[in-house]
């Protein structure tokens, strides 16, 4: 048995070897052919289109029914197929889209005059009936819409073919802004009635600059330029969205030409892409604003204003931005981010000084600091750990408690205001570009995430939420931010940049919210 040692025939026997080589050759051939195809074949995409722009973002849309989604990733895709009533320009002002003009006719009515001659991709006219239908569909519980901004809207009336009145329960000064994204999408009533919800989500029909072509979930979504768009045909012939869940796949896609523009990069991911040939990184000031919420309602050091100020002095935000976020963020002096209505440039950030922090802590009776917990979602683990380190330098020992995003979200909105512990890290994307969006749920004492109660703050919030005069609202925001700068119920941190990586083909500038509306994009 074991004396048969013609090992060679096995080891290096011709048949085996040849077989290996043959399979190897096959494999190589098979590998290179698709690679070549995908490298040159993508741009002459099968949409019958010439120049195609390929965009990737971290995820895939949840659904293509614009009223059954509430996340930025889905909206980024849908905004190209659907138009909203209003839109935020790059100047952060509200501009006409399907609505040409709007005004509050009384405290509880906004009147919108619509753009004439707009058609849906199927030829159906987009008129006052379509607008009324869309908003009513959004509010109908049967739609199960996760979009919540239109909470004060109670109904819509058609005034004439191109005029609608939107009725609210209280005066809602920022309703036009709320209609610039999720809540303002207009759908074709006749088509929906004929096709039904399921078929509509399979093949969406809007008035937007691009028409739907195909969607392979988690792979790619294709659109084609809509020649009859009211704003003229977009410059690119085709638009392709694909999900790219990690930096290495984005890099590979950019370098192989499979993707022209990568959006939604975290500072971490951007650092991984930095310095590669053929990859350009662009950062634009964004409006995702991060802060620490301090619980002043429970007994403990945080009830003392001096302690809260001390934390603000101790946390060196510029250092945090440089060290952890690769410089891809901007310090925010108060809750309202730069670019949003209500931001007050005269409110200055806290001086970052451990000395001041220690002095304030000692005055408050904590000469040796104190121990606490800092809770965060595990997606923010880097920032949370860094914050804990910065606090430790001033003697505040904050144990980091990381939760999975689902648990974090559930506790954030639970009725127990202490559910996330004495200090938690939170962030809010202020896409309405109005300070109200970030203030509304965590300042006024009757709101769910409010952990600091001040009669003065409540009064100022009522003014900015209900007043019809923009000047009055602006003043209220300024007063509120000065009050919060003094009382320090939060540690104000930063607003994250919108970071994009691209090859040299696309030319496109995003607005502050970083929405991927590609109508204005060009490719070479």
């Amino acid at each position: 048995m074991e004396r048969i040692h013609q090992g060679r025939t096995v080891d290096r026997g011709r048949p085996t070897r040849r077989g290996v080589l043959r399979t190897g050759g096959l494999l190589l051939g098979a590998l290179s052919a698709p690679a070549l195809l995908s490298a040159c074949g993508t741009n002459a995409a099968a949409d019958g289109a010439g120049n195609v722009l390929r965009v990737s973002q971290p995820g895939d849309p949840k659904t293509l029914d614009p009223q059954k989604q509430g996340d930025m990733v889905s909206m980024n895709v849908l905004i190209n197929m659907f138009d909203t009533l209003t839109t935020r320009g790059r100047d952060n002002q509200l501009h006409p889209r399907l609505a040409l003009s709007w005004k509050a006719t009384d405290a509880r009515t906004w009147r919108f005059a619509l753009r004439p001659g707009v058609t849906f991709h199927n030829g159906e006219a987009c008129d006052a009936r379509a607008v009324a239908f869309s908003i009513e569909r959004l509010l109908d519980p049967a739609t199960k819409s996760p979009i919540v901004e239109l909470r004060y809207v109670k109904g819509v009336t058609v005034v004439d073919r191109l005029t609608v009145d939107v009725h609210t329960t209280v005066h809602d000064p920022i309703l036009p802004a709320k209609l610039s994204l999720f809540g303002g999408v207009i759908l074709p009533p006749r088509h929906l009635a004929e096709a039904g919800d399921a078929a509509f989500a399979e093949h969406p029909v809007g008035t937007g600059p691009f028409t739907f072509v195909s969607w392979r979930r988690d792979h790619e979504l294709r659109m084609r330029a809509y020649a009859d768009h009211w704003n003229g045909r977009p410059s690119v012939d085709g638009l392709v969205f694909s999900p790219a869940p990690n930096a290495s796949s984005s890099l590979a896609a950019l370098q192989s030409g499979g993707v022209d523009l990568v959006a939604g990069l975290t500072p971490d991911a951007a650092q991984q892409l930095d310095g590669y040939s053929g990859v350009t990184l662009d950062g634009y000031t964004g409006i995702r604003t991060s802060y620490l919420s301090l619980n002043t309602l429970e007994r403990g050091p945080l009830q003392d204003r001096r302690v809260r100020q001390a934390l603000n002095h101790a946390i060196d935000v510029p250092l945090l931005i440089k060290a952890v976020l690769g410089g891809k963020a901007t310090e925010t002096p108060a809750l309202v981010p730069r670019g949003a209505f209500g931001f007050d440039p005269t409110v200055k950030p806290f001086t970052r000084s451990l000395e001041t922090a220690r002095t304030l802590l000692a005055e408050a009776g904590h000469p040796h600091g104190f121990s606490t917990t800092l809770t965060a979602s595990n997606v923010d683990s880097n920032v949370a750990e860094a914050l804990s380190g910065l606090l430790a330098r001033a003697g505040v020992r904050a144990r980091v408690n990381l939760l999975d995003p689902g648990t974090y979200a559930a506790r954030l909105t639970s009725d127990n205001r202490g559910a996330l512990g004495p200090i938690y890290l939170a962030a809010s994307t202020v896409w309405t570009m109005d300070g109200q969006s970030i203030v509304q749920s965590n300042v006024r004492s009757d709101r769910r995430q409010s952990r600091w109660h001040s009669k003065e703050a409540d009064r100022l919030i009522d003014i900015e939420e209900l007043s019809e005069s923009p000047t009055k609202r602006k003043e209220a925001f300024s007063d509120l931010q000065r009050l919060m700068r003094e009382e320090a119920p939060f540690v104000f941190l930063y607003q994250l940049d919108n970071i994009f990586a691209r090859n040299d083909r696309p030319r496109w500038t995003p607005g502050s919210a970083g929405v991927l509306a590609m109508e204005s994009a060009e490719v070479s």
Partner: protein
Amino acid sequence: MSALTLDKPPAPAEAPSRHRDTARLLRIVLRRLGIALFVLLCTATVSFFLVRLSGDPVKILLPPDATAHQESVLRASLGLDRPLLTQYLDYLWGLPRLDLGDSLVYGQPVSKILADRLPATIELAAAALAVTLVIAIPAGIFAAMRRGRRSDHTVMTGVLLGQSTPPFWVGILLILVFAVWLQALPASGYGTFANLVLPAVTLAVYSVAVVARLLRSSLIDVLSSDHIRSARAKGFGPLKVVLRHGLRNASLPVVTVIGLEVGNLLGGAILTERVFSWPGVGQLTVEAISNRDFPLVQATVLFFAATFVVVNLLVDLSYSFLDPRVRTSR
């Protein structure tokens, strides 16, 4: 693994009767089917209640600034405010009609979402199976023929390493080498053959180890038996002996384990799909869990359970067919 519970060995005294064999086989099949259905019912029940312990999906569906009223309206329209028992019975009632409810997040019927994702998972499993066979069979034969020597140890150590390395780590390593350093293959994505290579290899690593080790040990058993010695005496070369005579006899347990591996490949793709963002059922499962998409989680869990149950059923039944005591009563 499949528990081989055969009926009592047949009474040898009786004359052979094809009819009785068929009846016995039928009994075995029916019993197995009954057990399989029971297992699936248990899985459905456990997953239904377990997933509901994870928390309230409405909290994830709605942004943090939603009001309590908006939350309760959505909860009601999703039917999540009904009594647990009602929801459970409703779920069971739909199962036989393959109605698994609607996804809370995607708004589509769960069965449709699963059907959309299934091809990618099957594709990946099939490719991984091909990789497994292409690597494991030669490796097993080679190691068996060189048993006890250094080359045998080298191959088997490599195989064992593969078996003990978690797939996500293998995947990340492969991405690092082939996608990032060599830039030879895409790191993730779907659609071309090149996309398939790394995930298929990652998924196959474990199965290669299982199949190669079993093949080696059964070959070694067979090679030391008498008829192999007589084959050798006829002057056949060692490779010929193994291929012509050894493999045939060593194949039964190997075929069985390959069958079981098919189940593993279909069900083991969660981590691999996640790493390579492969748009299959595994990736869907992870998304569904993080979204607390109850109906979808229940469906994916049931799918994986069904995969294993069906594979085990087939393996068991093939045993019953192949087992001489069932096939022919001597």
